[in-house]
């Protein structure tokens, strides 16, 4: 950042401005990659590598099994759905914090998964999708025979 170590003392203000500008750029970049900070309809998700499988969990309170479409293609899992938050007829809205609207979330996996064994389960507003890894790619222990 400094061309030589005396630069800072010559123009301290300019350097602070530059640091500030870089911090702002970093914060904007983080907001782009971290969807939980974007306050739209984007169900929060966790992805865990469990060794023999990947587990994807999505927070979808109020959604039923027919409100989703889960697909897997080209190593990418895609979950589409819609959060419907409509005021019941004849009621006035007093407070509204839930966010309605359609959503799409995609997850790409570095290791191939066994497509036929992908399983999705919906329980208490949490959608859990288990994606077992392809068996031929799981680490295998090779026994050594002694001659």
């Amino acid at each position, binding site marked *: 950042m400094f061309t030589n170590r005396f630069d800072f003392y010559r123009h301290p203000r300019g350097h602070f401005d530059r640091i500030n500008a870089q911090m702002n750029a970093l914060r904007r970049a983080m907001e782009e990659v971290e969807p939980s900070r974007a306050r739209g309809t984007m169900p929060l998700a966790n*992805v*865990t590598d469990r060794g023999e499988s990947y587990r994807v969990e999505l927070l979808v309170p*109020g959604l039923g099994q027919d409100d989703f479409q889960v697909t897997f293609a080209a190593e990418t899992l895609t979950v589409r759905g819609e959060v419907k938050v409509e005021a*019941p007829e004849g009621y006035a809205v*007093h*407070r509204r*914090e*839930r966010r309605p609207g359609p959503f799409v979330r995609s997850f790409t996996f570095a290791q191939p998964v066994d497509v036929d064994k992908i399983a999705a389960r919906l329980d208490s507003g*949490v959608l859990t999708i288990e994606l077992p890894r392809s068996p031929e790619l799981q680490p295998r222990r090779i026994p050594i025979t002694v001659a």
Partner: protein
Amino acid sequence: MTQPIETANATDAQELNDRPWSPATVDIFENEQEVLLIAELPGVKPGDVQLEVENGELRLHARSSWDAPTGEGHLNEFQLTDLRRSFRLRESVDVDHIEARLVAGLLTVRLPRLRSNVPRKIDVAVA
């Protein structure tokens, strides 16, 4: 529009116990007969919801039984903690007839207004 319910400050010292918690996300609707509270309680089982009305305050405490999966986290956007929220009931509701139902992690609470608060239409007789 009347304002029968107002969120109270949920950081009551007595409410803070050792379990971590977060405020529940809610929608509130109302009509002349009732106030309808809808709270998102993902990961909460029906038996783990507590609703209390005391001193004109409605308190919700949902206990989470979710366990974070073991393994290497690639994306960590949420942790399911207990969920709490308190609401001040500015206007009397019929406490004995509050109904609550938890389906798919969504809690619906119906708080009927006391009869005396329901506006009544009075016909004017024409002489």
